[in-house]
């Protein structure tokens, strides 16, 4: 340091000149803190608060280099100029930008792993409620699928293929604190999202990184002018596609055809239906009830308001954010799907002590608070799905009676309804029950504080304490209703529950950046982390017999008036708690920024395992070579600006199993007692060993090899990134079925392996021609998933039956040699067209006749048996696609984003074909077989017990390939027009979301994350809440 000062003072005697100027960004705002260096020297300065600088340079200085994090560095020839003002351009995919790597940042060009960074601006411009849906088109290799289109529902995020039947969600690290919730943020809160895809990048979070890591950095204050911004939008939502249901007459004819096909007399509708209703159907004055339309909440509003304030000086910086978001659902009338979210964020950083060129002591904090309320309709399996019930609802049943009340059982009796006694009004089924009458409120606080000490330059000790609190309350009301013979609720029920929990983390790291012999650069880090979670409790209560029947707002347990003790219930339990202790280290090395290497080692101890099995060790290494720095690459310099080859290998862990699997636990639940006494009310508690202990259970390990390159061509206008990977999850934590004769539930064992292989390509182009700037990116990912071991003799984890309809068998499974969660059933080869064809087919069911499906005898034994079932579909896409296009001209900007997925299948059933013959159909049933040559796809109509419909076969499976244009936004910044307005930005925009979907899929929405009750299955459509088509207007104001 002293030496440097001597040098600087020595220079003062040389011939000098002073250059001044101002550095601004694209919007004209000053960029304080820009470094300006005389190229080839150490002479330099940074800009002040207003972006101004004044630098004394030797007269011989030829070039100034302007650089700022996140902006493209610029070199300006000095010549004779004394005033050099520069407009810095943000570096969309620049190599100088830094990326978050876990416990630190690294220059992107030096990074040797496979990571994706998406800036907060790019998320925000999608105007989505949720950050994950904005990420969809921008992160190759990260498959993000909505688990439902209902407002406030979550997303399934799978990084590089599903690696487990257990918890497959990636680890979210929010501002350095592991285990947060990305859904708690407004997109305007987010500075950037970094996804660590390969094992080496994620390895620093070893223990929980097996499914990848998502680092979320919230916006921090910057020194300089106070920045206030407001972002808002308002939109209306429509259904992109509604299914075409049969009307009353069509329904009647299908019912009669079914009867006819089974040699039964057709229905005597005139006597079965109320006379006036029958007449109105017959004379065409009434088409019947379209339940989906009745429930459609057309032009459902959605809005977002976000305020951000940031500022500070070189000692203290802060950023505040407040937002409100609300979204109404497009289905569910007369009750509402509704999601409301409020967020607040306060981040600050303070320098306590600093020397001339570095901060010695820094402290800071982050605080993110999120409150949201959600009420919705049932979106579960066939026994709990409001939409399924709308789709299956009988079109002959009126929705409302003459008084405007729900048409119910009493109306049926009064009007003389003698048809299906079990059919009930599906609108009322949701609107009067806890399917529609429910409200959850969720509170989450994610906060952290840090202390950073830098005793000598580049040696940083950082200590961070994180605290998270989550709490929620839930209330529902199940009202009195008599809708049909078997839906007769005479006693209403109010249910309330509340839970709260805490989580603490404490991380300490020590890092040191240093150079050896000037060209060997090291960046080393050692650290330690402890975390405790689940310190919380749940309580619940319920009561029957409300004093305010039918009124949800009055549905509180206190307002119930139980007549006997059993009409009040209460429960309470602790959260399963656990702890994780970790030690880790990382060394990043580069030689001349050309030869790059990185090593990581993490040791984790988890409370989920028995003593002696607790610790897992997760190493990783990676290397890179920036070819373009080599002299032999000079010849390609003209078109190839940058080429970095990368290779990485590492192991990550997953310990996400229930606690106490290593102990044989004794449970005492109420479903395992016995009623010895004569009163039938007194239970004697029973105790039983519920699982077979597995003291050997240990870490699941995911091992991944990644090869790739980052490159830039044609003056960095074209960027290409490629990655190939193979990821093997070993010792899968799985509950593989054990023989039932042992009478115990199977323990978690390290009992499976799964392999994901694939590649990712990201291509982008950015250029400008005068005022016209344009850019685009295409990314594509390919993944192949295969289960390679399951630790039981059979090698299968079975799925559920009764998924598409009651009375159907297992329809998905995990099995060695197949992709996880593949669809399992019969293949068909069309429909028997005539008797000759039946007679000439050896393998068929007894009694097969024309119009029946031709099941394929896959095992060739000449018979159709259960053994003929095989893979009939795969819910995982082979390819996923992301598209972005952006253009700007003067004040105008246009952005288009799209996503796509290819090669996956969807299992769809909008009715319970196998067991409920009287449910309504969609008009697809017009494609059934009615005689020779009419159809080779759908069989003749039968009542459902027929194998045609009862067998799970490929007639329920459709290709789900799709391309969705997610977002088209056109904006104009009025600042360009009115230069004197006191705003630095005044952008207005219009956006259309989900405007087009190109798909062959016949359902409402091909993007289906729903997978019955299993996290490892998706693509099951039983009446999936579709994502809306939204038209919105919005504004971005910056002061």
């Amino acid at each position, binding site marked *: 340091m002293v030496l440097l000062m001597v040098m600087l003072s020595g220079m003062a005697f040389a011939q000098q000149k002073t250059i001044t100027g101002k550095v601004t960004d694209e919007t004209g705002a000053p960029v304080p803190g820009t470094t300006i260096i005389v190229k080839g020297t150490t002479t330099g300065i940074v800009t002040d608060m207003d972006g101004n600088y004044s630098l004394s340079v030797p007269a011989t200085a030829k070039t100034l280099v302007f650089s700022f994090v996140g902006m493209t560095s610029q070199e300006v020839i000095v010549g004779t100029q004394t005033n050099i003002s520069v407009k810095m351009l943000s570096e969309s995919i620049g190599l100088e930008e830094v990326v978050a790597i876990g416990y630190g940042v690294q220059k992107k060009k030096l990074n040797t792993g496979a990571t994706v960074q998406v800036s907060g601006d790019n998320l925000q411009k999608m105007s989505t409620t949720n950050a994950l849906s904005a990420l969809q088109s921008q992160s190759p290799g990260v498959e993000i699928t909505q688990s439902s289109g209902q407002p406030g529902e979550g997303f399934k995020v799978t990084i590089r293929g599903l690696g487990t039947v257990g918890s497959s969600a990636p680890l979210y690290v929010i501002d350095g604190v592991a285990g947060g919730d990305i859904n708690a943020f407004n997109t305007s809160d987010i500075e950037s999202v970094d996804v660590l895809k390969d094992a080496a990048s994620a390895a620093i979070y070893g223990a929980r990184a097996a499914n990848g890591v998502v680092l979320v950095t919230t916006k921090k204050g910057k020194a300089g002018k106070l920045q206030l911004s407001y972002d808002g939008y308002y939109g209306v939502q429509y259904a992109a596609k509604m299914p075409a249901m049969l009307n009353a007459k069509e329904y009647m004819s299908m019912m009669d055809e079914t009867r006819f096909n*089974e040699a039964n007399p057709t229905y005597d509708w005139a006597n079965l239906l109320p006379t006036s209703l029958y007449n109105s159907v017959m004379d065409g004055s009434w088409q019947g009830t379209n339940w989906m339309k009745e429930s459609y909440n057309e032009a459902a509003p959605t809005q977002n308001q976000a305020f951000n304030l940031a500022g500070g000086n070189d000692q203290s910086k802060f950023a505040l954010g407040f937002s409100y978001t609300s979204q109404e659902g497009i289905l569910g009338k007369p009750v509402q799907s509704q999601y409301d979210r409020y967020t607040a964020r306060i981040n600050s950083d303070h320098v306590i002590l600093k020397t001339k060129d570095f901060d010695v002591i820094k402290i800071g904090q982050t605080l993110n608070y999120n409150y949201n309320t959600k009420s919705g309709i049932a979106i579960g399996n066939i026994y709990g799905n409001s939409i399924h019930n709308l789709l299956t609802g009988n079109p002959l049943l009126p929705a409302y009676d003459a008084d405007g009340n729900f048409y119910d059982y009493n109306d049926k009796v009064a009007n003389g309804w003698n048809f299906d*006694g*079990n059919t009930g009004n599906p609108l009322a089924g949701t609107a009067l029950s806890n399917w529609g009458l429910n409200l959850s409120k969720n509170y989450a606080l994610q906060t952290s504080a840090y202390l950073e*000490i830098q005793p000598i330059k580049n040696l940083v000790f950082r*200590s961070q304490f994180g605290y998270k609190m989550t709490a929620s309350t839930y209330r529902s009301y199940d009202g009195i209703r008599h809708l049909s013979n*078997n839906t*007769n609720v*005479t006693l209403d029920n109010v249910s309330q529950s509340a839970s709260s929990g805490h989580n603490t983390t404490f991380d300490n790291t020590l890092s040191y950046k240093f150079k050896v012999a000037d060209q060997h650069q090291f960046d080393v880090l050692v650290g*330690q982390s*402890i975390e405790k979670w689940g310190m919380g409790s749940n309580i619940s209560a319920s009561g*029957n017999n409300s004093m305010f029947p039918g009124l949800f707002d009055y549905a509180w347990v206190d307002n119930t008036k139980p*007549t006997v003790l*059993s*009409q009040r219930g209460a429960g309470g339990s*602790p959260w399963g*708690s656990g*702890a*994780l*202790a970790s030690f880790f280290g990382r060394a990043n090395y580069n030689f001349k920024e050309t030869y790059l290497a990185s090593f990581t080692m993490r040791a984790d*101890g988890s*409370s989920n395992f028995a003593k002696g099995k*607790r610790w897992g060790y997760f190493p990783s290494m990676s290397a890179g070579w920036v070819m373009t720095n080599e002299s032999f690459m000079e010849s390609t310099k003209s078109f190839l600006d940058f080429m970095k080859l990368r290779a990485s290998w590492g192991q990550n862990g997953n310990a996400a199993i229930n606690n*106490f699997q290593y*102990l044989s*636990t*004794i449970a*005492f639940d*109420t*479903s*395992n007692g*016995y*009623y*010895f*006494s*004569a009163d*039938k009310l007194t239970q004697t508690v*029973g105790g*039983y*060993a519920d699982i077979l*202990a597995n003291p*050997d259970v240990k870490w699941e390990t995911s091992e991944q090899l990644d090869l790739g390159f980052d490159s830039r061509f044609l003056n960095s206008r074209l960027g290409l990134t490629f990655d190939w990977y193979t990821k093997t999850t070993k010792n899968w934590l799985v509950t593989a079925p*054990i*023989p*039932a*004769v*042992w*009478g*115990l539930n199977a*323990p978690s064992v390290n009992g499976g392996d799964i392999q994901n292989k694939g590649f990712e390509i990201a291509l982008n182009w950015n250029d400008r021609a005068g005022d016209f700037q344009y850019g685009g990116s295409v990314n594509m990912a390919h993944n192949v998933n295969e289960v390679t071991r399951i630790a*039981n*003799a*059979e090698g*299968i984890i079975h799925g559920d039956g009764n998924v598409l309809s009651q*009375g159907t*068998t297992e329809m998905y499974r995990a099995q060695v040699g197949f992709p996880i969660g593949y669809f399992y059933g019969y293949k068909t080869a069309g429909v028997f067209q005539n008797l000759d064809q039946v007679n000439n087919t050896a393998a068929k069911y007894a*009694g097969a006749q024309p119009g029946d499906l031709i099941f394929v005898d896959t095992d060739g034994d000449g018979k159709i*048996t259960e053994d003929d079932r095989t893979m009939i579909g795969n819910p995982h896409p082979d390819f996923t696609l992301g598209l972005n296009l952006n253009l700007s001209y003067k004040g105008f900007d246009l952005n288009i984003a799209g996503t796509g997925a290819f090669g996956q299948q969807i299992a769809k059933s909008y009715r319970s074909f196998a067991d409920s*013959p009287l449910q309504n159909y969609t008009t697809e049933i017009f494609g059934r077989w009615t005689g020779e040559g009419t159809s080779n796809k759908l069989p003749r109509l039968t*009542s459902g017990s027929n*194998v045609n419909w009862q067998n799970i076969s490929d007639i329920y499976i459709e290709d789900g390939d799709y391309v969705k244009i997610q977002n088209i936004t056109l904006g104009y910044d009025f600042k360009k027009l009115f230069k004197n307005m006191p705003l630095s930005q005044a952008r207005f925009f219009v956006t259309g979301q989900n405007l087009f979907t190109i798909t062959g899929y016949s359902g409402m929405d091909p993007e289906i994350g729903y997978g019955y009750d299993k996290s490892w299955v998706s693509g099951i459509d039983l009446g999936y809440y579709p994502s809306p088509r939204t038209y919105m207007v919005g504004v971005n104001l910056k002061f």
Partner: protein
Amino acid sequence: MKKILYIAATALLFMSCENYLDTESYTKKNTGNYPQSADDAIQMVTGVYATLNKPIANCANTYYFASELASDDRFGGGGENDKDFQVLDHLLYTNLDRFKTFWSDRYSGISRANMAIANLDKVADETLRNQLKGETLFLRAFFYNELVEMFGNVPLITKVPSTVSEAQLYPKQASAEEVYGFIAAGLKEAISIMPAKKWNETVSGNGHVTKWAAEALLARVFLFYTGFYQKDALPLMDADGKITGSLTKAEVITGLEDCIANSGNSLVTDYRSLWPYTNTLSKKNYPYAKNAPAWIKDGTNPETVFSIKFSHLASWSTTTGYSNQYMLFFAIRGSGSANQYKNLYPFGQGWGAGPVSPKLWNEWKTAEPLDPRRDASILDGSKTNDYTYGADKQMEESGYYSKKVIATTGAKTYNTDGTMNALFNSFTSSTEYYGDGAADDFQLAHEVDLNVIRFSDVLLMQSELTGNADNMNKVRTRAGLPTVSYSATALRNERRWELAFEGTRWSDIRRWGIAKEALSNQVGADIWNRGVATTMKNQGAGYGARYDATKGFMPIPQSEIDLSSGVLTQNPGWDASALFVSWNE
């Protein structure tokens, strides 16, 4: 600076502490700390009892349900989609895995019993310990008996597995001799150690298994084994798992006579008061039962030797099996007509499983024309107002219903003219019984206990084993019938009438060797399918051929066979040729 480093160093040291990672479950105990006391032991035994109810959540796949439908006295029935009911009658299958829940639940009871027996020495009170151990031995024997009668050669698990790798392997099937040897040894031990307290003075509390129940079950096991396998004694397994002894007919008879003389169990006066339709609420509006003595409430009936108990607190979430789902399944399918269940009063709504064979109705009339038990046991639907066939696509409908185990309604409200207005789906929901008069789920509100062994069965078994008609005549006398002298035919008929629909007929016809003829006898009976009159027909290979092929054993759950990788073998007769696709008119 030093101070900060010091803090950091301390933090690092703190982390290395393993104790940080220790956690404790506060909702469960574990085998390290349980059982420690007599209360713990009672809880463990209660956990075994709980598995009596478990499979009833899937009641169509249980021993009792299968026995009823497979027997000659009942058809499959249900709606046209309830092929799972129909296949039981015809000994065919739609799904080879259907008995998985039953198999698992029974073995889970066995596993819990094994663990309890290994830990009961922690009970200090000797009398209580012997009683509890006897109960557990009884239950384990009861579970094995259902398994071995249904599935033949089943794996014999006598202790809890010690390691995970042991449990990943499938144990071999034991021979019938071994399984029966184990059952007999367990019951023999139970009988020898259990205190000889009267049925309503049990030391562990009323409602628990008694020594007398063990004696009765032993006789039932003996009769089946010796009859079906053509043996004259039961094998006895020793502590090493070897068959080294046998248990003679004389010992079994001694046990029955001990039970008859000392249990305190007895026949109730009026046969009708055994069945819930005589409950005080329902009988008010049921002319047939109006003058009968009232139903004897569960837990107070001296004729009950062993029953599976049900509760008022069943719920859909986990405890469906606490409700008597048989009453729902055997009840009458709804057509939607508002008065249907008033016309059928007091018999309620359900799934229409197990229509009673008209042959039983007719043969009973011919053989015992004066027997009042026929009307006490069977409802002739065709005699009720506006009876319509084909409600909700009922299959194999005969119009006859068992009145014993069936949803039993009661008047809830009355019209001003005194006629019934609304009905309880189950009379037990009324305040006259266990309910609050409001909650009354038609699927769950059934809570009458299921008789497994009645005292009249004990009397009949004694007559059958000794060839002495005295006890059989006590049963006849109670029914108001004249005495008869002993003959095999008389005894067999008596069992068929007295114990109709109580789950014994199927094993009786199997052990008497008359199953093939009895089953074939169903062909030609008048039935209605979806309201269309027809006659019962052979399905698949036909009743006789199917019995020959299977000997009445049901298919072992296919998923267990798959999981065993060839260790388990499927019972004969359950190949693809037995697949039932649809009813062959």
